[in-house]
């Protein structure tokens, strides 16, 4: 249907890189989201302040600026820490790490709110029951709160992951060779912008659709126990 003019492998590699960036960003973003939610629900005002500033700042500035700031500013911070710890070499962040960290930081700010909502809606009685059984607080978190919060958070996280998938195109602007970037290279050689950006659009549509189906399946799976209890 399309003439890739020899750029097929590059486009395929770019698409694969896009998927890797998305899942890398998701992994880091989930951690940031959990930490953020933990901070916001913390009994210490100081931690709540950090959580609040994190979500306000990150949700208020464009993702592309976060990507650029992490790419250019991240190393400065790491090297300052390195100096403090007495390491005198140079710490370098490659584009992939910068890209997934930036996308993760952004995802995490939104995920913080999703997790917070989910954790808060775990019935208080269950936690009291766990305390009554003599569980320690970290046990309660890992065994009672988190598994249930995850189920409640799933729809929200799915939507955020859809946004993350689309935001991966932004890391092309720090020259990470993902789908968008490699489409640009193909266009530079073939002078056919419509053909290659259209192919890229179709690939993105395919990826987002597959993830959407996966999301529906995952939600069904996570809600299995609940439905059984209802019937």
């Amino acid at each position, binding site marked *: 249907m399309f003439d890739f003019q*020899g*750029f097929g*492998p*590059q486009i395929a*590699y770019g698409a694969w890189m896009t998927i890797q960036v998305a899942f*890398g960003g998701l*992994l*880091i973003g989930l*951690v940031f989201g*959990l*930490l953020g939610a933990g901070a916001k629900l913390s009994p210490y005002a100081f931690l709540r302040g950090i959580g609040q500033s994190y979500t306000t700042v990150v949700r208020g500035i464009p993702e592309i600026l976060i990507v650029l700031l992490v790419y*250019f500013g991240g*190393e*400065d911070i*790491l090297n300052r820490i390195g100096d403090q710890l007495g*390491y005198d*070499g*140079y*710490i*370098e*962040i*490659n*584009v*992939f*790490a*910068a890209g*997934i*960290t930036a996308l993760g930081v952004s995802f995490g700010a939104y995920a913080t709110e999703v997790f917070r909502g989910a954790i808060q809606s775990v019935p208080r009685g269950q936690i009291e029951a766990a305390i009554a059984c003599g569980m320690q607080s*970290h046990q309660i978190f890992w065994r009672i709160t988190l598994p249930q919060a995850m189920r409640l958070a799933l729809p929200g996280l799915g939507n955020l992951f859809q946004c993350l998938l689309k935001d991966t195109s932004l890391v092309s*602007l*720090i*020259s990470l*060779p993902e789908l968008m*970037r*490699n489409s*640009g*290279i193909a*266009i*530079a*050689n073939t*002078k056919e*912008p419509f053909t290659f950006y259209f192919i890229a659009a179709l690939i993105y549509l395919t990826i987002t659709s597959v993830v959407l189906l996966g999301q529906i399946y995952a939600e069904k799976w996570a809600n299995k126990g609940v439905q059984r209890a209802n019937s």
Partner: protein
Amino acid sequence: MKKIAIALAAVIGLGVSMANAADKLRIGTEGAYPPFNGIDKEGKAFGFDVDIANALCAEMKAECEIVAPLEWDSIIIGLNKKKYDAIVASMSITEERKKAVAFTDPYYSNNLTMVAKKGANIDPNNLKGKSVGAQRATISANYVTDNMKDVDAKLYDTQENAYLDLASGRVEVLVSDKLPAYDWLRSEQGAGFEFIGDAIDVNDKIGIAVRKKDDDLRMKLNAALKAIVANGTYEKINAKYFPFSIF
């Protein structure tokens, strides 16, 4: 909590490397500026700049790695952040850039020029109200913003995108380095276009940028450059791209 912290560090750690000064020489190039530098179907960098860089490395008996593609408008920042050790990317030696980086001796010479559609009858001395394109962060862009106050200036992230808009008629005049434009005019897309007016900046020298502190590397590159010009390697590379000397 500790487990999460370790996992996070591990994931980010995949991409964080502790670079030592004694590692191989990393040479950055843009990869969107044919015939000087571009990216091919295999994702490899090619072009005059890349050939020169490889010849210099062979001459210095150094192990080199070409880092490409890079965003042009942040290429100097990347050098100073030690993402690579030298830039061989057709960079003009300018006073402005010398504040941020050091340059080797020039490895080729260039002019600025204007390109427009054949028969468009554009007076290069009166561009008032015309749309004029140039690549951001180049001497062409500086020329447009400093000397053409009454035009509709459009700045592009890559020269390739500027060509696309010149070909589509979105910009009427492109201010560009002469040599890549010369190459583009010979391509299928550029066939209907021509140079207009006289060359603008006739004393544009292209050099290799290194960090200011790396004087040692700069000296080595200068010596290697002299050597490849003397032993004919440079001439061979030049002939591959242009039928006249560009040194």
